[in-house]
Structures are given as C-alpha cells and as structure tokens.
C-alpha cells in the first residue's frame, strides 16, 4: 500500500486540485495527499472491521474457558464446551434446525416458483390482484397473528411435531419468495415460453423443463435468504415446536434465559449455532445480497 503510486485504487482527486498541467510543483504534494487520504480510509475501514468482528472474537476467546477462567479472564480450557454439551442436546438440535429449514424451504420453493411463474407468464383475469394479495402479506407482523395461529395449529394437533413450525415458516417466507420469483420470470421472454408450449410441452412441463432451469439463480437466492432467516429465528420455534424438537437457536435462547448456565458454555453454544449460517453466508453471500436488495423493487 505504502509503495503504491498515485494511481492507487480510489485515488480520485479530492477537490479538483489537479485542475491543469500547470499544477507542476504541487504534484508531489497532491500525490502525498491522495496517498494519505487512502491510508486514512484504510485505517477507518480497519477500525469498523474490528468493531464488527469483536463479538465473534469475544465468543471465541471466552468459549474456551471454565467459569473460573472467565472471571479471571486468564487461561483456556474445554470446560465451557463440556458444560454446553451436558446441558444442551447440541447435535439433535442442530439436526432439528436442519430438518425444519429443509422442509420449510422445500415448501417455499414449490409454491413460490409455481405462483411466481403463473403471475409473470400465465396471467389470468384478476391475477394482478391475487399477486398483490400474496405479496401484501409481507406487511403482516407475525406477532399480530401469533395467538390465533397458535390456537389453530394446536386445534389440528400440529404443535406436537415439526409440522406447525414448518408451515408457519413456509407461509412467512412465501410472499417475498413469490415476489422475487415473479420478478425473475418477468425477465424471461414470452416467446420462449409460447414456443415451448407450441412444441407440445404444455404449460406444466414448460414450467418444469424450461422455466425452473432458467431460474436457478433466483432459486438460490430464495434458498439462502430463507435458510438464514429460519435458522436464526426464535419466536416461531419457541412457541410452535415441542421441547424435544427445538432448533438450536431456540435451545440456546432458552438455555440462556434459565440464567444457570455459565457464560463460557453460552458463548460456545452461540458459536456452534452460528457456524452453519456463517458458512452459508461465506459461500453464497452474493445471492444473499441480491435477495436483500431486490426488495427495493428494481
């Protein structure tokens, strides 16, 4: 960085100082200014990075301690991890999280790709209003309906298994996923779809063989976005899952609310529960970012 000439990235001239070739003797000064400006920005970015990463460092540092080592802030051991595994069925809760995520995402993909395709390419009278109806459900805060939801699911005996939570996650994810898929399918040419239908594929098979393969990037975006949302969720899992089928996030939150578990054990639990989401983020961050910004309607 220090050896970079004035053409270092981001070296756009600050105040239009290098207005003309007559700037001769001042050029060295300008270069210095540019370089120190880039350095200042770089240092600022490092400071922000330290703040954003500090919680992770804190968890990592303190997960490997015993309660005593935590109080003294000295020494490391696996005591926290042992306590965690003794108090929380980590493996089975990670499995629960995985199963709940997989089932809910499967439903979301099944209904949002079909509906998105219908709203974009198979418009019928009133389909615009139906689309609006589905997407406007985005504005319903879960807390507003959570009591009747609980009553309904309990009535159908869906709160004694994964089913209730899976259905609620699926319903919550569907509006945005449908919006995203419809937006994506609108970008596919009508002629392509019509040609496939004319060739005798029919609408259903055209959807399966032409539209689905073309929309894999959008499907990836929906999957990643929903995975992180469902994996990280507390409220739905807390209320609608039976204790034995709790997800890791719910298990961790209730363990913490008990106020009897040592901090190192909680930090260890935080870390291990975050690992899958972090891995997915690191691999698919492009898709995640696309999904988050698509909401802007562009």
């Amino acid at each position: 960085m220090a050896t970079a000439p004035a053409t270092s990235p981001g070296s756009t001239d600050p105040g239009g100082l290098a207005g003309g070739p007559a700037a001769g003797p001042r050029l060295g000064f300008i270069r210095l200014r540019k370089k120190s400006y880039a350095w200042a920005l770089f240092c600022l970015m490092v400071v922000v990075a330290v703040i954003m990463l500090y919680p992770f460092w804190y968890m990592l540092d303190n997960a490997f301690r015993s309660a005593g080592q935590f109080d003294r802030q000295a020494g490391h051991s696996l005591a926290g991890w042992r306590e965690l595994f003794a108090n929380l069925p980590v493996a089975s809760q990670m499995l629960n999280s995985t199963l709940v995520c997989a089932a809910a995402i499967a439903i979301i993909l099944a209904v949002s790709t079909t509906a998105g395709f219908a709203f974009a390419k198979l418009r019928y009278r009133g389909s615009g209003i139906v689309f609006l109806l589905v997407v406007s459900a985005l504005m319903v805060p879960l807390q507003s309906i959570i009591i009747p939801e609980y009553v309904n699911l309990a009535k159908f005996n869906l709160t004694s298994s994964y089913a209730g939570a899976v259905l609620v996650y699926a319903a919550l994810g569907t509006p945005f996923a449908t919006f995203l898929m419809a937006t994506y399918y609108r970008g596919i040419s009508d002629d392509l779809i019509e040609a496939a239908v004319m060739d005798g594929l029919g609408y259903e098979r055209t959807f399966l063989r032409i539209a689905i393969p073309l929309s894999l990037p959008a499907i990836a975006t929906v999957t990643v976005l929903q995975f992180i949302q469902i994996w990280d969720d507390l409220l739905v899992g807390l209320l609608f899952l039976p204790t034995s089928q709790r997800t890791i996030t719910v298990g961790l939150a209730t363990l913490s609310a008990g106020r009897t578990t040592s901090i190192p054990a909680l930090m260890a639990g935080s870390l291990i529960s975050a690992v899958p989401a972090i891995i997915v983020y690191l691999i698919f961050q492009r898709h995640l970012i696309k999904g988050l910004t698509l909401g802007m309607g562009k």
Partner: protein
Amino acid sequence: MSLKSRRRRAGIVLSIPAVLLVVALLGVPIGQAVYYSMTQWNGITATWIGPSAYVAVFKDPIFWRVLENNGLLLLAVPFAIGIPLLIAALLNEHVRGWRFFRSVYFLPTAISWVVIGMFALRFFSATGVLNELLSHVGFGSSATDLLAGESSALAALAITFIFSMVGTNTIIFLTGMATLDPTLIEAAKVDGLNRWQIFHRVTLPLLTRFVQFSFVITVISAFSALFSLIFVMTGGGPGFGTTTLEFFVYQTGFQQVQFGTGALYGIILFVIMAVVGLVQLRLIRADDSEGW
C-alpha cells in the same frame, strides 16, 4: 380447449398453493385476531366484550408505557441509517481491500439476533466489556450493569439494535451508490466541490429512494424484529423498561395466557405497521411518477 383458456387454467392451478398457504396461515388469523381482541379469553372460556376492550386498553397506563418504549426506540432509527450510510460511503471509495471489508461488515447479517443478544448481555453487564473500556478512560467507579436500569436497558437494547442493522442497511446504500452515474460525481469535482460537498449535495439526494427503503425496513425491524434481542437480553425488564408492543403480545398471550388482550395488542401493532407500509407505497409511487 383453446390455448388461451389452457393458459388461464394453468395460471390458476399454479398460483393456488401459494394463495392457500398465505390465506390460511397469514390471512385468516388476522380476522380471528380482530375477533379475539374483543373477547376476554384465557384459552378455555371466551366472553365477548366488544370494542370496549380497546377502550379499557387505552386507559391502561402500562399499555402507554410499552408504547412509549416503541416511540423511544424510534430514536435509534437515525443512527441505524446514518452509520451504515457513512460506512457505505467509506466502502464506495473503493480503497484497496474494500471487497474484503464489505464481506466483514455484512457478516453479522447472517447471525441470529439471539447470538448477538447473547454477546450484548455480556457487553453491557457490570463486569462486561463496556465497563472495562470505560474504566480504562477514567470512569472506573461508575461500573454499573446497564441492563439493570429501566432507561439504560432500553438504551442498551437500542445500541444493540443499531449494531444489528448495520449490515443490512450498508448493503442497501452500497447497492444504491453503485447505481449512481459516475459522470455526475466527476462533474461535481470539476465544479470544485470537496468530498463532503459531493456526498452531501450530489450523492445523498440521488440516494433518496434507498434511504426511504432502509427507513421503512428499519422502522419495521424496530417494531417487529426485536423479540430475540429482548428475550435474551432483558426479558422485557427491568419492570416494563424494555417491553415493546411485540414483546407485550408474547407476555400477555403466552406468559399470562390472556389471549384476548394479547391479540388486541397484536392488532394495534398491525395497524401501526400498515400505516408505515402505506407510507412506503406512497413514496414508491411518487418516485415512479418521477421516472425513477
């Protein structure tokens, strides 16, 4: 069957599952919630009260205390937007390594707010990181647990909320900045504007749409996504210090098993969110007519 009617039929068939799912699990419960809100119900016996249930709630000082917390949390919104705006501007200078830093800044977006709350709990405690930092700069004697005082706990919650929003809002602004026409910035430079003037007079006005979007997302999150943080950090306390409307629904409905009153709070939350949503729709429409 004609091609057109086949297409129509296919369209209806393919959109039915999504409509059913959304109507059954999100639509119908709203109607039920409105009904529940006018009953006194503990899950077993229901007594119809009618709209006077709302009058009773509006006379309840605890309800206003909770709503006040929601109002106070709105004070965090300018920070939850302003800080990411500055971070996005920083990244948008494209100094060497900016892509790496972008990934780092967005990382907390992938993390559960349960986990963030778990760290925040330690950060704000009497023996926590914040007090340690403060003692280093000479405030040693005032080591207090921020989560033990009503207003300081709300402040701690607000700060944690701001931190949790940084990733999402930075993504929004960075996306916005990428859509800007670089020649406008160049022209401003030729006109002799300095960096701050360019940011303030050129970049910011062009980002209006994105700021509006992030404003709506941030307000919605402040009112309906803090459950995890509150559950882990304070449980709504001390007293009602950090109980917001969404947490009040949970407490009333599931801890005190007053389904009727809980549903009523939920309906009030729904109305507030609907107003925010309508404002957003109007803003988007206004922008569309300007050719955005």
